[in-house]
């Protein structure tokens, strides 16, 4: 009986009213002591001073469809710089009347990425879909077959170029990085030092200089008559650069694995390849998802550096637009627009990585 009485008593005791609800929340989070109250008030004042003007600049006083000179009259944001020039920003120098081709290529790519987000969809058919998709994208971009007019890679630009550089860059750099990390741990001295030297050399050099080298110095070493596409060289430079960083992140994960996991795998008779593939890498790579995504995200943004070797990526096309005399002085709007595009890319990556982390969590 005593137990019953105690149970009812405990369940009836409620927390003090001051600690729950809106008031409780505000007290705990906004006005917890003098110092925090002052901070809250200052923040509120700052928000009041900045947010309304920003909103009226961006939305209320802004012009969306007008010419440059009209824009200069208006007080708000001039989004017309985007609406008028979006095709130049998104597709660069790609022949105007053929721009439906890169558009379809980008739609296929984003569609495939979106579908691949769900791990339940990962199957060999999705693999085939990717192969076919990439092939179609290549044909669309390049042309020169069927009735499609050929378009040189030097005319590619804007969003397709950025996506191409980053998505190929990342998907090739990641496995390469894993291989380098494994190589660095190898018992074979030659392979080990080859990987160490590679990683340290690449990490010791800024991406810009690698891009310069790939673009201006590397061709000097090629035999006469042989030329390698500028785009391809930039792509390779990005891959080599990112792989070195991925390798170091993965090495961190490998070092976090206990000796016991290797021993358990080996004691079953699994060979090195199977031990790595089935036991060590699935665990090590999962541990390092957050830092890996950091590396991949910064690699994605770093693709904008190809500007310096005169590839027309998103950054370059945007700069071209704001250098147009008619649109001078609207760089803010143009940069906000591509910042949004980059943000969408980065945010999807980090969202995906968090989802993946949660799905792969088995409570160890």
């Amino acid at each position, binding site marked *: 009986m005593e137990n019953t009485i105690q149970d009812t008593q405990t369940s009836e005791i409620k927390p003090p009213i001051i600690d729950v609800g809106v008031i409780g929340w505000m007290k705990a989070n906004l006005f917890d002591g003098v110092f925090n109250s002052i901070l809250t008030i200052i923040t509120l004042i700052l928000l009041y001073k900045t947010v309304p003007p920003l909103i009226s600049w961006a939305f209320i006083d802004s012009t969306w469809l007008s010419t440059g000179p009209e824009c200069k009259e208006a007080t708000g944001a001039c989004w017309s710089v985007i609406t008028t020039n979006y095709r130049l920003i998104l597709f660069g120098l790609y022949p105007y009347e053929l721009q439906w081709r890169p558009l379809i290529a980008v739609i296929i790519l984003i569609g495939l990425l979106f579908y691949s987000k769900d791990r339940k969809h990962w199957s060999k058919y999705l693999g085939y879909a990717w192969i076919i998709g990439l092939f179609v994208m290549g044909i669309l971009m390049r042309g020169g077959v069927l009735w499609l007019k050929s378009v040189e890679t030097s005319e590619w630009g804007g969003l397709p170029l950025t996506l191409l550089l980053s998505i190929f860059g990342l998907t090739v750099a990641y496995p390469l990085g894993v291989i380098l990390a494994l190589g660095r741990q190898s018992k074979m001295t030659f392979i080990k030092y080859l990987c160490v030297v590679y990683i340290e050399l690449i990490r010791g050099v800024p991406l810009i200089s690698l891009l310069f080298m790939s673009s201006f110095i590397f061709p000097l070493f090629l035999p006469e008559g042989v030329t390698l596409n500028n785009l391809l060289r930039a792509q390779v430079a990005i891959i080599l650069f990112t792989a070195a960083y991925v390798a170091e992140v993965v090495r961190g994960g490998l070092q976090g694995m206990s000796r*016991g996991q290797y021993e358990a795998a080996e004691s*079953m*008779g*699994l*060979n090195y390849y199977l031990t790595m593939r089935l036991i060590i890498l*699935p665990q090590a790579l999962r541990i390092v998802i957050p830092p890996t995504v950091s590396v991949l995200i910064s690699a994605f943004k770093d693709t904008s550096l190809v500007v310096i070797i005169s590839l027309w990526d998103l950054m370059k096309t945007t700069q071209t637009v704001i250098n147009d005399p008619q649109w001078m002085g609207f760089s803010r709007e143009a940069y906000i627009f591509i910042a949004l595009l980059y943000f969408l890319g980065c945010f999807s990556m980090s969202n995906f990585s968090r989802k993946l982390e949660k799905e792969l969590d*088995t*409570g*160890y």
Partner: protein
Amino acid sequence: MNDQQENKIASPSDENIIEITDMHKWFGDFHVLQGIDLTVKKKERIVICGPSGSGKSTLIRCINRLEEHQRGTIIVDGMELTNNLKNIEKIRAEVGMVFQHFNLFPHLTIIDNLALGPIWVRKVPKKQAEETAMHYLEKVHIAEQAKKYPGQLSGGQQQRVAIARSLCMNPQVMLFDEPTSALDPEMIKEVLDVMIELAREGMTMIVVTHEMGFAKSVAHRVMLMDFGQILESNTPDEFFDNAQHERTKLFLSQILI
């Protein structure tokens, strides 16, 4: 207790499964194993005890080449352990090992932990491997946990899964490296019970443990190791009641309080 009878049910055959002759191992300058001679017959059960640092774990780890010996020979199931990788993998598939810290694969479910070896090493079809896995999980009384992950199981359950995982490979010999040392007292029994069942079925076992009760009731031979040598090797009765070596007497007096 009918220990005697039990021993008779699965008495050792005449066939040798492991032959170790004059085996030495060094860690750097430290001479861990100093001339080990040990022959194990099929269906024989050996318990090795000794103070920590005596080399007992290293000895059994040499048998499946988790440690490399530097002198002498080790022959397992007719194959000599050398640097020949193919041979090592073959021997490892024949020799099951259970570790102090279980070493289950935390990213795989229990059933996948068990089926992995048969599928990838023995090339057994997946469905068949999973059936075998369920069979052994039932044997260690844990079939209902098949779909869980190791992190969701208690230590005793994990160790039983680890034993089942080794059994799935259908090994000739089972090595146990202090299988109960990392367990809470109330979980030790459930693991020992599984090991006793295994013994009853005639599994060849080499067990490094300080569970003297287990040694008494299950072992054919009990050995004491110290300073990298096997100092005493005797039947359990002789070992506990009539030890020949002074070191054994000292060890037993300390361990049995």
